[in-house]
């Protein structure tokens, strides 16, 4: 287990964050696969108070036609937040932040999807934040990857995201909204865990070089833990199907 950066020994082990967590502790996380009927693939997740729903549609034809690629898939990714997702009501129109996040998330997922398999086709990924609580782009990517797997889109690997940062001088994992707002730095990371590659990395705030890599390694460690939960979520979904014909007859 990694300890928070900076302080050592007993003092570090006893230090608790505002919500009671240790420096390297994740917020409670829940992941569910295949929750919508219309979408080809979908996933829902809760991380702390955050709630995100992701849907994948496709592959389908590309509209408008000029957006088509003759030799590969066109991916459309939309990150969007519901008006009631934040403390102050948010207008439904996309903000510049929404547009930037849509881009980096798409790029992260494109690194994993085997896009040459579906030339002249389109894949749409919709990420809807129903309740915001820090780390939404990371949870969004984690869920999008599950939704893609649920839709049967071939990928090199799952993609999983987790954030880390610096709060009150310590390097911490999975920032809450409070820590995000009041901390000294925050870093969003997404990786392809089996292939060990980083597909998203954004940081803002100020960190020394040593702190930077401590945060990065901590975030990667967080990603790996969440990856295990992703795999469990997929297996659980398959298990659910068994409930349709249990040993004792059910009523439909």
């Amino acid at each position, binding site marked *: 287990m990694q300890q928070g950066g900076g302080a050592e020994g007993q003092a570090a082990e006893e230090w608790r964050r505002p919500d009671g967590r240790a420096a390297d502790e994740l917020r409670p996380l829940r992941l569910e696969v295949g929750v919508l009927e*219309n*979408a080809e693939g979908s996933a829902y997740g809760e991380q702390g108070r955050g709630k995100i729903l992701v849907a994948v549609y496709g592959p389908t034809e590309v509209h408008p036609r000029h957006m088509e690629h003759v030799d590969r898939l066109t991916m459309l990714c939309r990150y969007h937040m519901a008006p009631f997702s934040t403390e102050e009501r948010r207008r439904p129109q996309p903000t510049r932040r929404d547009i930037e996040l849509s881009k980096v998330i798409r790029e992260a997922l494109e690194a994993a999807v085997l896009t040459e398999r579906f030339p002249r086709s389109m894949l749409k990924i919709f990420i809807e934040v129903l309740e915001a609580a820090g780390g939404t782009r990371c949870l969004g990517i984690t869920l999008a990857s599950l939704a893609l797997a649920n839709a049967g889109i071939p990928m090199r690997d799952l993609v999983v995201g987790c954030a880390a940062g610096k709060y009150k001088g310590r390097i911490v994992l999975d920032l809450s909204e409070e820590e995000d707002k009041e901390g000294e730095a925050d870093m969003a990371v997404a990786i392809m865990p089996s292939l060990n590659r980083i597909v998203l990395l954004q940081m803002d705030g100020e960190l020394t070089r040593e702190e930077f890599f401590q945060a990065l390694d901590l975030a990667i460690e967080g990603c790996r833990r969440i990856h295990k939960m992703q795999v469990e979520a997929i297996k659980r979904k398959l298990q659910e199907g068994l409930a349709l014909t249990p040993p004792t007859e059910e009523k439909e």
Partner: protein
Amino acid sequence: MSLTPVLPRINKLREQEIRTALRQGIRIDGRGFDEYRSIQVTTGVVSQAEGSANALIGGTRVMAGVKIGLATPYSDQPNMGVLIVNAEFVPLASPTFEPGPPDENAIELARVIDRGIRSSKVILLEEYAPLPGKRVYVFFIDIYVLDHLGNLLDTAALASIAALYTAKIPKVEVVGDEVSLNRSVTESIRTSALPITVTVAKVFDHLLVDPNLEEELLAEARIAITTTERDTICAVQKMGSGAFTRQEIEECVELAFKCRPKIEEALRLAIGHA
């Protein structure tokens, strides 16, 4: 400006199947003409909102969030709080929804629900004007469609009412000319009016309540009737480019009152009224 919509087409075998079933008095999913799919309402689903609810009718899933703040009143209604109902048909809910601002369907849905709320006086906006002409409460009801399997209107109406009923309305503090909301002291809505919307679709001349996706696509027209607990009708909207006879309208009103109890039960279960 409104254009004839391009809708998915149903193949001929399926259309034949549905026609034959209806002639035999049954719907394609086994329901009777006056039967709703299973209804489920849950509240308190999103904590950032003052009130929130999730409504499920069959597979159709709609979420509603209530956000409450202070605003300047409309100049022609200085003594009334403001109610704004907005609906987002987000693309994740259906292959037919495009990203972008609300289209005419989303706008119509929001306005019909708004009328149902205003006319039934679920919320007495006159009671929410602490500084008339200057500062009043503003209630935002944001409707979020999550999965479209037909009959968005009834589902959205349910979610909206449930969210409104369980909303924690912050008390207002007036100090001279300054008004602020004290979010730690809250109260609930003060009325017990319960508007409930029932949509009836006319499919091959049969009247079907709670149309599913295919029935909606095949319907020549639909009508949504919002009734109150006082046995009155407080909002009606005919939708689609077909027509109803007067006789059919009577039957639809009958159906709206007939289907009310089951929907009301699901709603009361969620909002905790006896």
